C-alpha cells in the first residue's frame, strides 16, 4: 500500500466489501491502480444523491477479480462544479455508467470520449435529472417531452464514410415480437464494417420506482425487471437487503434459492440453444429446443405457481417450500434430460449449423476484458468470470461449483458454454434434491438499520447481476442500483460482428441473447 499514488480518506470493510473513500481528484488514479494491481474488472459504477445529509453527490466504482472473494468499492464525494474525472479513457468498461450518471444526476465525466446522452433520448427535457432526490417534472417539461425533440442536437451515430459504404438502419421496431433497439450497420456489400446501436427506448425508471416502494414490495418489482431472469433478479435484490440487515439465511432457503436459480438457468439455456438454431435456419433444432423449454416452464409453474419463477423469493428467505415437490422435479427432469441429450446430439451432428457458428461473432479475450463482458459470453472468450465461483454465495461452495471456461470466443463457443452450464445445472439440481436441510424457510425477526448499505449479486443465465441497496434514516429505501448482464454485454456486439457478414448478425445476436428489458431499466 506504500506505492499508491492516491490518498485514502477513509476505509471500511463489511463482509466481503471494502469501501475506500478518496478525494474526487484521486478518483481516476485510485480506480486505475486498483484495476491494475488486482487485475480486476469493473463490476458496476453508480451515484447517490446525499445532498440532504452531506451536501454532495457520491460516485462509487465497484471492482473485483476472479481469484479473491472481495469487492473493492472506490468512492468519492462530488460537491462543487458537479464534475469528476472520467475513468473511461483508462477503463473502457465505464463508458455507459458515466453517461448514465450524467443523464440521471447531471454529473459531468470530464474527459469522457463520447459524453452523449445514453438513457434519455432527444425528447427528454434538458436539465432534468430524475434520480436526484429533489427531482420533479413540471407541466411544461411534460408537454415538451410528449411533443418530442427538445434537445437541438440529434444523437450522433458513428458514421463511416467512403466509397461503397452504405448504412443499414434496423429497428427500433423489429419484425419479430421483441423489444425495441436500434442498430446501424455500416457495410461494404455484405461485410459489416462497423455497428452502432442505441437502446433505452423503453426506459422504465425502475431505480426511481424502487425509492418509492418499501423494501418488501421491491421484491416484486425486481422480479419484473427482466422476465427470463426474474428469479436471479429477486435473489440478488433479497441478498443485498439481507446483507445490509445482517440476516443469516436459513439453509433450507439457501438451498431453494440455489435450486430455483439453476432451474431458471436450465430452461433459459436450452431455449437459447434452440433459438440459435432459428438464427441459422435449422428449424428442427428450434422446434425441439422450444418443446423442452416449454416442459421446463410447465414444471416451473407446477412447482412455484409461476412459469417465470416469480413469487418464490421474499426478504430473509423464500415463500414456498419447493423441496417438498422434489419428486415432480426429479421425474420431470429425468424425462427432460433424456430429450435434452437427443437434442444436443442432433445439434452437434448438424454440421451445417456448426459451420455457421464457427468463427462467427468472434470476441477476443482482451476486448472482452476491457469492456467488462460478463457471464457465458466472457467464459466463451476465455475469462473465468462466474459469480458462483468468484464470489461463492448460497450453496455453491458446498456444491463444489467449478466454472467452465472456453477459449474460442465465437458463436459456437457460446453455444458450448451454454451446454456445459446446463449440464452442470442438471447435476446441481439433482445433488440438491438429495440433500437434507433444516425446516426454516424464513429468517427470524430483523430490523432495518439506518443509513446502511450492501451489495447483492447472483449469476443469472446471461451473467453476473448486481444490486446495491442503501437505507435511509427511517429504514426505508434510500437508493437501489441494479446492473444486469445485458447492460455490460451489449457493448461487445459491435466487436463481435465486425468483419462478419450482415446475414450472420441474427445468429451472433442470438448467441449472446441479450435482453432489451434488462438494459432499459
Amino acid at each position, binding site marked *: 500500500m506504500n506505492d499508491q499514488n492516491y490518498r485514502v480518506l477513509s476505509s471500511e470493510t463489511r463482509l466481503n466489501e471494502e469501501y475506500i473513500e478518496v478525494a474526487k481528484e484521486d478518483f481516476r488514479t485510485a480506480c486505475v491502480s486498483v484495476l491494475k494491481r488486482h487485475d480486476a474488472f469493473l463490476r458496476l459504477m453508480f451515484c447517490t444523491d446525499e445532498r440532504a445529509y452531506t451536501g454532495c453527490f457520491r460516485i462509487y466504482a465497484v471492482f473485483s477479480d476472479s481469484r479473491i472473494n472481495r469487492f473493492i468499492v472506490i468512492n468519492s464525494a462530488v460537491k462543487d462544479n458537479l464534475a469528476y474525472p472520467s475513468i473511461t479513457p483508462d477503463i473502457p468498461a465505464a463508458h455507459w455508467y458515466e453517461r448514465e450518471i450524467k443523464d440521471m444526476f447531471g454529473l459531468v465525466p470530464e474527459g469522457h470520449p463520447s459524453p452523449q446522452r445514453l438513457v434519455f433520448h432527444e425528447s427528454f427535457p434538458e436539465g432534468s435529472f430524475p434520480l436526484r432526490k429533489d427531482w420533479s417534472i413540471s407541466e411544461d417539461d411534460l408537454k415538451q417531452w410528449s411533443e418530442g425533440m427538445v434537445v437541438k442536437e440529434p444523437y450522433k451515430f458513428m458514421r463511416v464514410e467512403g466509397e461503397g459504404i*452504405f*448504412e*443499414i*438502419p*434496423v429497428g427500433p421496431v*423489429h*419484425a*419479430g415480437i421483441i423489444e425495441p433497439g436500434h442498430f446501424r450497420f455500416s457495410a461494404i456489400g*455484405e461485410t459489416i464494417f462497423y455497428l452502432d446501436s442505441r437502446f433505452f427506448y423503453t426506459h422504465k425508471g425502475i431505480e426511481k420506482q424502487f425509492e418509492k416502494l418499501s423494501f418488501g414490495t421491491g421484491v416484486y418489482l425486481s422480479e419484473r425487471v427482466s422476465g427470463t431472469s426474474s428469479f436471479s433478479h429477486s435473489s440478488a435484490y433479497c441478498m443485498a437487503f439481507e446483507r445490509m440487515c445482517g440476516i443469516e439465511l436459513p439453509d433450507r432457503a439457501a438451498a431453494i434459492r440455489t435450486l430455483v436459480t439453476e432451474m431458471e438457468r436450465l430452461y433459459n439455456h436450452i431455449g437459447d440453444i434452440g433459438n440459435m*438454431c*432459428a*438464427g*441459422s*435456419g*435449422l*428449424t*428442427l433444432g*428450434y*422446434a*425441439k429446443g422450444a*418443446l423442452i423449454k416449454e416442459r421446463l416452464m410447465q414444471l416451473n409453474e407446477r412447482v412455484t405457481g409461476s412459469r417465470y419463477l416469480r413469487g418464490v423469493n421474499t426478504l430473509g428467505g423464500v415463500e414456498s417450500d419447493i423441496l417438498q415437490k422434489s419428486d415432480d422435479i426429479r421425474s420431470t427432469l429425468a424425462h427432460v434430460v433424456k430429450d435434452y441429450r437427443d437434442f444436443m446430439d442432433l445439434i452437434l451432428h*448438424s454440421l*451445417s*449449423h456448426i*459451420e*455457421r457458428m464457427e468463427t*462467427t461473432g468472434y470476441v477476443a479475450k482482451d476486448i472482452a476484458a476491457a469492456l467488462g463482458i460478463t457471464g457465458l459470453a466472457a467464459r466463451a472468450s476465455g475469462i473465468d468470470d462466474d459469480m458462483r465461483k468468484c464470489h461463492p454465495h448460497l450453496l455453491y461452495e458446498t456444491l463444489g461449483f467449478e466454472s467452465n471456461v472456453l477459449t474460442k470466443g465465437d458463436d459456437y463457443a457460446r453455444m458450448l458454454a451454454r451446454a456445459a452450464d446446463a449440464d452442470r445445472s442438471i447435476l446441481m439440481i439433482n445433488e440438491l434434491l438429495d440433500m437434507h436441510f433444516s425446516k426454516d424457510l424464513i429468517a427470524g425477526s430483523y430490523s432495518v438499520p439506518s443509513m446502511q448499505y450492501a451489495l447483492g449479486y447472483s449469476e443469472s443465465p446471461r451473467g453476473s447481476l448486481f444490486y446495491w441497496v442503501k437505507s435511509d434514516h427511517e429504514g426505508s429505501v434510500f437508493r437501489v442500483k441494479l446492473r444486469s448482464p445485458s447492460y455490460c454485454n451489449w457493448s461487445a456486439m459491435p466487436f463481435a460482428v465486425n468483419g462478419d*457478414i*450482415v*446475414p*450472420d*448478425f*441474427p445468429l451472433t445476436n442470438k448467441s449472446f441473447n441479450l435482453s432489451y428489458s434488462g438494459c432499459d431499466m
Partner: protein
Amino acid sequence: MEHLQFLIILFFAPLVQGLIKKFKAHMQGRRGPSIFQTYFDLLRLFKKEMVISETASWIFRAAPYIVFSSVLCAAMIVPVISVNSEGWIMSDVIALIYILALGRFFMALAGLDTGTAFGGEGSSREMTVAIMVEPMIMLSIFTASIAAGSTNLSRIAETHAIVYSPSHIMALSAFIVAIIAETGRIPVDNPDTHLELTMIHEGMLLEYSGRYLAFMEWAHYIKQMLLFTVAIDIFFPYGIAKIGTFEDVAISAAIYAGKILFLSALMAVIESSRAKLRFFQLSSLLGGAFVLSVLAFLLYIMMGR
C-alpha cells in the same frame, strides 16, 4: 382443352405451398396450419388495405402485375398433364427461362424502388443467386433438349429424352438445387424467418402489403409449382397423357398429383434437415450444382446418353 392446363397450376399452386408447410410442421413435431391456409391468407391480403411508401415510383405499383403475369405466361407454355408437341410450338424452354427472368428483374427493381435497406439487400442477394442459378437451369434443360433434338418442352416430355442415363441423374440433381434456390428455401434462403437481415426473397417484398403482396405471394407459389412441373416434364414424365381421351387425362392427372406430392415432401425433408448456408458459401453449393449440370451436358454429348 390442353391449352387450359395452366389453370391447374394457377389454382393448385397455393395448395402445394400449404402441403409443404404441413409436411414441414409434421417433421418438426408440430400440428401446423391447415393445407388450405395459404388460400385464406391470399384472400385476406386481397381484402386488405395497401400501405405504399411515399417514395415508391410506378415500378413499385407495376411490379406485382408484371411478376404475376410473367409466371402465368410461363405456366401457359408448360405441359402439365397432357402433351402435344405438334400443336404446341410455343412451349419453348428458352422462352420459359426468359419470361421468368423478366419477373425476377421487376421484382428486384421493386425491391430497390422504395429505397429501404432491406429491399436493396434482398434485390442484390437475389441477383447474386440468380447469376449462378440461371445457367444451371439452362444447362440441365439443354441436356434434355439435345437428347430430344428440340427445345420444345412438350417434345422433351414426349420422348422421355434423357431418362435412364447418367446425365439424367446429374442434371436432375442440379435442377433440384436450382428449384431450392429459385423458390427461396433452405439452405439458400429461409421462407419462414422474421429476421430481416437474412432475407432474400422476403426482403424484396417487405414493403408490399394488401393486394400487391397477394399477387407477389401467389406468383411465388405459381413459380414453385411451375418449376416442379418442368422438373416432372423433363426428368420423370412417365404417365403423361399423349392423346386427349378423358380416361388418359384422368390417369395422367393422378400420376401428376403423386409426383407433385413427392417433390413437395422432398423439399420439406431437405428444408428440415439442415441449416441455411452462410451467404458467401452459397457459391460452393450453387457452383457445385453448376458443375454437375455442365458434366451432365458434356457426358451426354460424349457418350450420347
